[in-house]
């Protein structure tokens, strides 16, 4: 399944993001990550937002981008990310308290790896939660690098990382 990354420029107003996401989902895209690049705000006060999603087929992605443009969304860039190595890992502990989005963005911000799927279960408050992360990277080595980062993050946040037996 190809993974597509688009950067769109949105006005910093409610409802903007939703109207962008809708055509993506409708067109068969499975949204993976949304990153607001607030540090790259344009002179016209637009916020670049990087959205990555997976599609069955490259053609679906093209259709989605056409649709976005038709709706007047400014699409700055459009790329297929070639993520060829994937693994699942489990994280157990106070995942939310220790800033889950930071944990994920430490992977996503590498540019070569992404958390493409996550399942989180939270039992009662104060009990440790469990998450299964699926991480993809542009290659086997890069995946290993991403895992190294995750190992460090988990160590510093005192989270238990359960790695797959077929180590990447």
């Amino acid at each position, binding site marked *: 399944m190809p993974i597509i990354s688009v950067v769109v420029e949105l006005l910093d107003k409610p409802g903007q993001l939703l109207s962008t996401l809708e055509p993506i989902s409708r067109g068969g895209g499975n949204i993976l990550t949304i990153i607001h690049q607030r540090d790259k705000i344009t002179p016209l006060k637009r916020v670049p937002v990087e959205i990555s999603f997976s599609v069955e087929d490259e053609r679906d992605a093209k259709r989605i981008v056409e649709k976005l443009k038709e709706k007047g969304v400014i699409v700055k860039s459009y790329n297929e990310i070639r993520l060829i190595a994937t693994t699942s890992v489990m994280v*157990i502990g106070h995942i939310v308290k220790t800033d889950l989005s930071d944990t994920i963005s430490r992977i996503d911000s590498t540019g070569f790896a992404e958390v493409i799927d996550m399942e989180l279960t939270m039992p009662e408050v104060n009990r440790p939660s469990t998450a299964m992360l699926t991480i993809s990277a542009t290659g086997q080595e890069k995946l290993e690098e991403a895992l190294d980062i995750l190992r460090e993050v988990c160590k510093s946040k005192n989270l238990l990382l359960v790695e797959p*037996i077929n180590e990447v």
Partner: protein
Amino acid sequence: MISIAIFGFGAVGQGVAEVLLRKRKQLESLIGKYKVVAVTDSKGSVVDENGVELSKAIEKKKKGGFDGEKTLGVIESLDFDVAIEVTPTDVNSGEPGLTHILKSIEKGADVITSNKGPLVVAFKKIKKLAEKKGVKLGYEATVGGVMPIIKLAKADLAGNDIKVIKGVLNGTCNYILTRMEKEKMTYSQVLSEAQELKIAEADPSYDVEGIDSAAKLVILANAVMDMDAIFDDVEVVGITRITPEAFEVAANKNYTIRLIAEANKEKGFLKVSPRLLPRNHPLAIEGTMNAALIKTDLAGDIVVMGKGAGKYETASAIISDLVEFYRKR
């Protein structure tokens, strides 16, 4: 006539004695006549140069303990061909087994042990001394109970380079994880159950913190992978933090969770930690079983499996070493 001395007379020591008694005919057809000249416990011993009456020694131990000469005195004063060292494991000091083993080897006796401590602490030293003295050293029982991993690696896979070993080496942990998965119980619930069933010790930390697995891993790394490892080289994470939900979340991706000990010579690391395994993975075994996956350069991947512990299972591994040492050609 082979003279045997048994040091330590708990579950394993008595198991060995029972087997030597019960299967005498079969064993003597393999190795020739034998006698047990001494059995010892922490307080004393029963010694007879002409052969201890094992059934009486077992009776006596059941009623209380031994008295008389202690193990070290027995080693000094008595002649024996082979020492079976089955005292408790201490992975920090290796004692009392380490001294028993070194002194027995000094005397020129062969040694068979199920005690991990001495091998974890001083594998090289013991091995060197045994080579110098020209005696045999058997320790199949230290790793994986009956699972025949050491002989498999040394004999049947001779000539291979063993690159990686991954194994489920602790039956207690495997039992706890299997039950958590099947019954959706919490770690502490299953632990109490396992303690009631005597699968886990009153102080379970040695097993559940991964220490036992790490000790076995160090022995494997030294004995069959030539890795020159010590206990502190192993990164150890136990199973105490695994949540019941973990199994559900894992199952959605068709995974299960097991405590895996991995010695990886290619990447140069030793690690004991809970890992995600595809449910059909050969190491995704259930209950108190042990299993190991051995990656070799010539033979490819090999998997062994067997009961990880138990009185007779461990005795079986000790007897197999004995037969290997003295088999009539």
